């Protein structure tokens, strides 16, 4: 039951929304389509749902041509950012919709539909809300209904288009966990579209990172983290510092220290710009410390982590993230030495 997307292109006027996308989604997998807005991830989702036809390319589901089937025939569950619940129907009727519109021959009996609705209300943890109307629910509850409605038809593929985009941070986190739990309970192959890298990395088995209509990298969150395919992947997935360096046989050399280059695999020697994460950098205030001489400008942050802002001799601003206990040894104005344990080099 794998989904194979092969060389799919789609242009809106002269704007290429998808510029040749290939991707394989495994059976039962939770895959996240990640990318900045305009990267083509929603267009790809609409192609999979049958709401858009690509200009070129093939989509095979379990070996069968998916594009030859209408949206109706594909049995794909789609969850929208703005919920798209039927506003004139109660929650129970919303969930039952996919079963009630089936032709008489394949439609389950009224009792069976009711049982299925109850089951889904429990799965989505919205028991007792069946008789309410969508307008009487909170945003989080509405999205739970939307997921339950999509699951009612036992879809072969569950597609979610920025499902938490309209929710506040706390509800979003809560629903994230719920979605993963529902996925694990049903085993349905799930594709989640999001622009939130934290969400994608926390939820998905694999992340497909898109940029400008192309696939930048597909891999597990750990793979994307440790071996980013390009500087774009590295910058999109977290905070970065920029610092001029000199590349020499796979090492980025700075004034006072050197760090291994993780991307690209074989960097060209010469002057370059290095990128590194605040959490990959370290500070040392000792008199014999090695590293780039910097001066601490400001220390801020709360909870377990502190961000220490530093300035180099030539005025480059760098951020270092350290544990709260470690930060107490530093004060603003103090000269320290900075090192980074891994860098990415911009071509």
């Amino acid at each position, binding site marked *: 039951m794998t989904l194979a997307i092969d060389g799919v292109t789609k242009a809106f006027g002269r704007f290429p929304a998808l510029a040749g996308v290939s991707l394989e989604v495994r059976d039962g997998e939770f895959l996240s389509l990640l990318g900045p807005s305009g990267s083509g991830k929603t267009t790809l989702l609409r192609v999979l749902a*049958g709401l858009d036809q690509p200009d070129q390319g093939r989509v095979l589901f379990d070996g069968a041509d998916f594009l030859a089937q209408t949206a109706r025939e594909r049995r794909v569950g789609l969850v929208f950012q703005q919920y*798209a619940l039927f506003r004139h129907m*109660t929650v*129970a*009727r919303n969930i039952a919709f996919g079963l009630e*519109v089936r032709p008489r021959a394949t439609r389950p009996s009224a009792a069976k539909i009711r049982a299925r609705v109850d089951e889904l209300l429990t799965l989505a943890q919205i028991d007792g809300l069946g*008789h309410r109307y969508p307008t009487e629910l909170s945003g989080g509850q509405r999205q739970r209904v939307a997921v339950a409605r999509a699951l009612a038809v036992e879809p072969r593929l569950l597609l979610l288009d920025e499902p938490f985009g309209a929710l506040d941070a706390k509800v979003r986190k809560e629903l994230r966990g719920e979605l993963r739990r529902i996925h694990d309970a049903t085993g349905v192959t799930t594709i989640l579209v999001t622009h939130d890298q934290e969400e994608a990395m926390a939820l998905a088995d694999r992340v497909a990172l898109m940029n400008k209509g192309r696939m930048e990298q597909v891999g597990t969150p750990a793979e994307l983290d440790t071996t980013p395919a390009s500087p774009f992947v590295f910058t999109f997935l977290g905070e970065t510092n920029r610092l001029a360096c000199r590349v020499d046989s796979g090492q980025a050399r700075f004034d006072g220290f050197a760090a291994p280059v993780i991307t690209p695999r074989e960097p060209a020697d010469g002057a370059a710009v290095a990128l590194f994460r605040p959490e990959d950098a370290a500070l040392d205030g000792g008199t014999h410390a090695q590293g780039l001489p910097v001066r601490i400008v400001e220390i801020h942050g709360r909870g377990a982590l502190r961000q220490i802002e530093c300035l180099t001799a030539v005025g480059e601003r760098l951020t270092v993230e350290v544990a709260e206990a470690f930060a107490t040894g530093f004060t603003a104005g103090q000269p320290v030495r900075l090192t980074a344990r891994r860098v990415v080099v911009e071509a």
Partner: protein
Amino acid sequence: MCFVTPCSAGCCRPRARLPAETSPQRALPGIVLGTILVTVPLIAREPIPLMTEQGPDEELAAVTLGAGGWSVFRRVTLPNIRWALLHGMLLCNARAMGEFGAVSVLSGHIRSLTETLPLRVEALYNDDDFVGAFSAATLLGGLAIVTLVARTMLEHVIRAADRAGAIEEAGA
């Protein structure tokens, strides 16, 4: 003399213009067509902005859930615009009752045969039959009130049907 005074010209013209072979039977389709042409756009004027605002997401969701075109229209689109559609129909009805210009030209204006109420009011008024004119106008006013009452009753019926559906589910 008919050409001299504007008043008599207004009174005489329809009757003077009526050709002998015009039959009342042939006037009816004209009245109906004329009225439709002038009033039906009013039905669309209410739901269209509403549908534009709501967007196609609900219909798209229905399609991915396996609903066919007719099913999407009957179960999703139509219920969503039913109030706007009802108000549009009422506006259309009001306009049809009051429509004058198109019907006046197309009907042929034969008394008691191819006349609508507004035309009758004008004819009576022009004949200086003020009692008749005001009676007919009052009848028009009465029809407007009947329409309003019908509207309120319709709203009750639709609301009650919605509630019945909801209760049925709550019980289930």
